[in-house]
């Protein structure tokens, strides 16, 4: 893999998979890049996955609201809003990082990309603190009642996706830090940013449903 990074231009995308250059195309046309189309296809499957969890949450909403403890008793919006603000703004910072990458500004890329990681980690920390409170103060666990089951499953799978995103982001960050980011990795960074935007988008729905409608 590392030797690939010395090669230049768009051929690199094909070379990594042993495909000749004429079968792959410049990364600029997203519908011709198999990495990008592959990521979109994967995100489609993720949409189907989260839709199922979200639908389940909606279906059980009546029982959830009547749970003991109930959402109204345990949710504290300031903490959640802090996390939400971090996550949503991280969509902006990753966009700026990508822009810096395209124009070849290394420092700008590292700064914005690093800030994205910090914001994502802050979101996770907020979730962690919230869960700690829910479990230790209110005794709300996944097995306590249906509210606990649906809540921890939906929010937990979202947090898992944020965690995976942070691992991916950190990998790109380290490669860029060590100046080992190849042309191919630029495409990787771009599709990872798509994934990150998707995870943000899911949170908008989850936040609205769980913390606003579901209280």
């Amino acid at each position, binding site marked *: 893999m590392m030797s690939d990074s010395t090669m230049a231009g768009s051929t690199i995308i094909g070379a990594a998979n042993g495909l000749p250059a004429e079968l792959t195309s410049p990364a600029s046309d997203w519908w011709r890049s*198999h990495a990008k189309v592959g990521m979109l296809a994967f995100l489609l499957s993720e949409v189907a996955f989260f839709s*199922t969890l979200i639908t389940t949450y909606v279906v059980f909403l009546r029982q959830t609201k009547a749970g003991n403890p109930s959402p109204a008793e345990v949710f504290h919006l300031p903490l959640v809003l802090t996390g939400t603000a971090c996550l949503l703004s991280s969509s902006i910072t990753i966009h700026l990082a990508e822009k810096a990458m395209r124009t070849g500004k290394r420092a700008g890329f590292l700064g914005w990309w690093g800030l994205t990681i910090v914001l994502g980690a802050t979101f996770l920390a907020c979730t962690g603190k919230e869960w700690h409170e829910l479990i230790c103060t209110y005794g709300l666990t996944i097995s306590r*009642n249906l509210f606990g089951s649906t809540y921890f499953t939906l929010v937990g799978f979202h947090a898992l996706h944020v965690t995976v995103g942070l691992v991916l982001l950190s990998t790109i960050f380290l490669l860029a830090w060590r100046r080992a980011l190849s042309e191919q990795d630029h495409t990787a960074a771009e599709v990872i940013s798509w994934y990150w935007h998707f995870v943000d988008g899911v949170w908008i729905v989850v936040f609205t449903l769980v913390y606003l409608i579901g209280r």
Partner: protein
Amino acid sequence: MATVTQPAALERPFWTARLHEWAVTVDHKRIGIMYVVMAVVFLVIAGLEAEAIRWQLFVPENTFLGPDRFNQFFTMHGTTMVFFVGMPILIGIANYIVPLQIGARDMAFPRLNAFGFWVTLFGGLLAYFSFFIPGGPPAIGWFAYAPLTERAFNRGAGVDFWTLGLLVSGIGTIAAGVNFVATILTLRCPGMTLTKMPFFTWTMLWTSVQILLAIPPLTAALVMVEFDRALGAKFFNPQNDGSAYMWQHLFWFFGHPEVYILILPAFGMISEVIPVFSRKVLFGYEFMAAATMAIVFISMGVWAHHMFCVGMNRTLDMYFAAASLLVSIPTGIKFFNWLATMYGGRISLASPMLFACGFLSMFVLGGLTGIMLACAPFDFQVSDTYFVVGHFHWVLIGGTLFGVFAGIHYWFPKVTGRMLSERLAKWQFWLLLIGFILTFGPMHISGLLGMPRRIYTYLPDRRWQIWNQLSTIGALVQVPSYLLFVINIFWSLKYGQPAGDDPWDAWTLEWATPSPPPTYNFEAVPTIRSRRPLWDAKHPDDPDWKYE
């Protein structure tokens, strides 16, 4: 890849070297073959389970299996056929054929491809490991209705192995879906616009979209089952606000599209075989492609026709009945186009075409019982009887299996470089056809007589005995058919006629390479101008691209 592993492999003894080559391969052709071999092995296992089930039902009050074993066997039979036979064999054949058909050198993500296969196989092994644990395999039926899957009713780990096995193999299937979409959309050879793709590739594109839409909901639902069982969550536990009904919706939201995942690739194989053996172009190509898309989208909204007897409400019943009937329109379009392709053609009844004709005649009957079942009032009468069992075996064997056999007999020469024995293939076909009709035809009657599915035995005064005995005899007639198939493969591998590049005088790109194709598929990447590039090459005076 091969150049890297070779020096190490040469030092090993012959068999370990061979094994190592296959274990580390990322070549789409080898992965495709491994998928098919996996599917055939599981086909034999699930087939034996079916034979045991039929033997148990041969006479009233039989004690051959006993209730527990019987329940375990029909659960594992259904699960295996859908997840570890049906999908792997289709994905495997497509893995081999699609890159060749579109003039690519491999799938878009070769390593993801290998991952998908191994994960699918591991899922199958995980599910079957339940045979070796206390309590044995799950006895929950292939759709695993709640609350039977809850810890309170199933304390053994069988259900956990089942759940995790399906979850893991589902991830492999999603990986394959992502890979096919990326491959088909980005790796087509120069000149191959979407409307010039071979038709099998079209159906695989839509099958993959359907995989991406339908498998993840199952994954999510399986996670909930496992959370219920392992962590004490309440999703499907009606005593704690949960809902068993919710599971049915979630499962069938996956389960109905799943049957189209199983049939669409078979449609594609038929659409390759019928033109070649009728010596005509596929009739109504654009309509066929559009009908495939229509089937995918309509079939995403029909799932609750499996649940008419649950007692939803009248509006839902009417909606789901109407939507289900709607699917028959694009399917009908396909049927008439296949018939129109054959009409006036110079039809050769070589084995692939024989199976294709078997498909056409049998699948249409299964479709008709499907229309009957889509009508809610009729379904109220026969739901959960052998009529339903007869119906879905009719479409899955009469449709998917006949289609797959058509595909295997068509492409075997390409994969191995040798022809299958026509004589054995014809015996296989007729034994399968007769055995199949004899097995599943009587089930419609025993179902109408009121025999519920999944009962391990019945009383003699029910008048069900004769129909069950016919079914069992039919199941036994099928056995030599499958045996002949396996014998034919091994015999032909050794003694079959050499096939040459293009034994059927076909028109798509996979026939433009040697048989078997080299690792890199094509020496030079082909450029095409029409849907039938090989026709253009063979008839430069009258090429297709002038008319398309």
